[in-house]
């Protein structure tokens, strides 16, 4: 009876987190997808006066060239989602593979891998991404995605390695081996499902990091080149006029934070569905 009273508020809080996440991410996904087929204005055309404030025609005003900011923000959502998904996908594939291999590797190979990963992690993500982008001939969206993916993979690999090692010593792994299960099968049906809930939450964190890192790269001029409207570039272009038209800087900031928070809330909410031991009984 007492447990009912203690756990009840928690049970109600969970769906709230999930819904908040769904709504925040949903808005960005909707804006991003819509930008593919329809935009309020041509993103490169001068649609109104310079540095107009918000109005019914221009919801968040215009930039210093008179382009509609809301249009750019929508394209920004698409770019942010593309970068987040792409970077996390690349980071996950490389990181999980390396992590699992490392967990199975012989002592010295494991140590060597772990040391390499530690060095990679010690470098700031942004610095690695800048190096990769600078090394490639042309700065485009994909070089930023690949760069961020590689930078993130080190953290994923380190986490996967330690999680896999913890599962590997469990009796059910030995039991599976006793019954003649092969290693690839054990990885597929026992190890990956057991490390997945923790990894998924980490991927959400990484997604937020990647989106912010891409904005930083664009801000520095190393991201998607114009006329791709990344939030980082909108922010950078609005910097000079921040006192006369602050909305140009505030809007991309809000967009960035809302997407990053939304993905984290979504992952946190979804975790209870992924992990049956945390599901409300």
């Amino acid at each position: 009876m007492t447990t009912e009273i203690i756990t009840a508020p928690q049970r109600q809080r969970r769906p709230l987190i999930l819904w908040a996440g769904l709504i925040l991410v949903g808005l960005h996904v909707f804006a991003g997808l819509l930008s593919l087929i329809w935009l309020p204005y041509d993103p490169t055309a001068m649609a109104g006066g310079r540095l107009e404030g918000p109005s019914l025609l221009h919801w968040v005003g215009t930039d210093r060239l008179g382009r509609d900011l809301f249009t750019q923000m929508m394209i920004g959502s698409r770019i942010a989602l593309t970068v987040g998904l792409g970077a996390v996908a690349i980071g996950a594939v490389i990181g999980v593979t390396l992590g699992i291999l490392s967990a199975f590797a012989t002592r010295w190979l494991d140590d060597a891998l772990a040391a390499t990963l530690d060095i990679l992690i010690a470098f700031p993500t942004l610095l690695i991404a800048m190096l990769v982008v600078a090394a490639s001939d042309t700065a485009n969206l994909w070089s930023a995605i690949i760069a961020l993916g590689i930078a993130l993979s080190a953290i994923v690999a380190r986490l996967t390695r330690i999680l896999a090692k913890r599962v590997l010593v469990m009796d059910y792994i030995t039991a599976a081996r006793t019954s003649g299960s092969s290693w690839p099968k054990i990885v597929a049906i026992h190890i990956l499902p057991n490390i997945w809930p923790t990894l998924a939450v980490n991927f959400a964190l990484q997604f937020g990091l990647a989106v912010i890192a891409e904005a930083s790269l664009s801000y520095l001029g190393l991201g998607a080149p114009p006329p791709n409207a990344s939030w980082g570039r909108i922010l950078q272009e609005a910097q000079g006029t921040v006192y006369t038209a602050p909305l140009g800087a505030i809007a991309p900031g809000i967009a960035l934070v809302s997407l990053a928070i939304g993905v984290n809330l979504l992952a946190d909410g979804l975790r209870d569905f992924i992990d049956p031991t945390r599901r409300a009984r």
Partner: protein
Amino acid sequence: MTALLTLDNLSVSTGGKTLIHGLSFFLAKGERLGLIGESGSGKSLTALAATGLLPAGLSASGSAILAGTEVIGAPERQLNTLRGTAAAIVFQEPLTALDPLMRVGKQVAEPLSRRAKRDGKPLHGTALDEAVLALLTEVALPDPPRIARAYPHELSGGQRQRIAIAMALACKPDLLIADEPTTALDVTTQAEILALIDRLVRERNMALLFISHDLPVVANTVSRVVVLRQGEAVEAGTVADVFGNPQHDYTKSLLAAARSFDRALEGTP
């Protein structure tokens, strides 16, 4: 009687430290052998070495022949074929012996379908489901369809151990290795699980290697015992001989401890 498991001068060591010293024993088909000794005496290691499952960093020497195959130094692939058919292990802690994120029905189905495939009679769909339910019924679990859909954390310790036993049975092993299968359970559940193991071993005519530190339990379950102390076999023989007329001081002290515990329970000084 044909030999199912023969250990000959088996030693296990790690980094210059020897954990098991030249252990030799023999287990025939359908026979029941108890491996007794205190914690850290190398009982579980012996079981792992006999099935080629030693953790990385431990190395074995000597000989361990399981179902006619030399296990020590055998390649992983050969061991894999051997493991699913010759021997299965039931572990001490039923919670960690089950995958927390997999429904127990699926966990039982896993070794079941593998064994069926090896026998050349693959099981799928409803046939597999039915085989799982039959196995859950065989280990005397109530309401098998409901249990099959449950996750391990939704079951009691005794129920989990029954699932673990069902998973071991699914391999149709010739040798069942029970590594302290009742230590983590309360006394009434212990008795039920022991009775279950006893019945299954008899019905399926399996050999049993029973690892325990609990002397009364061992005495009731097996016919022959090997007493281990710090990785060395100090005494071996039938239960009546070893328990009735112990030769080694260590066996005597184990028995004395068990007796004084019994006396304390009965309230006589």
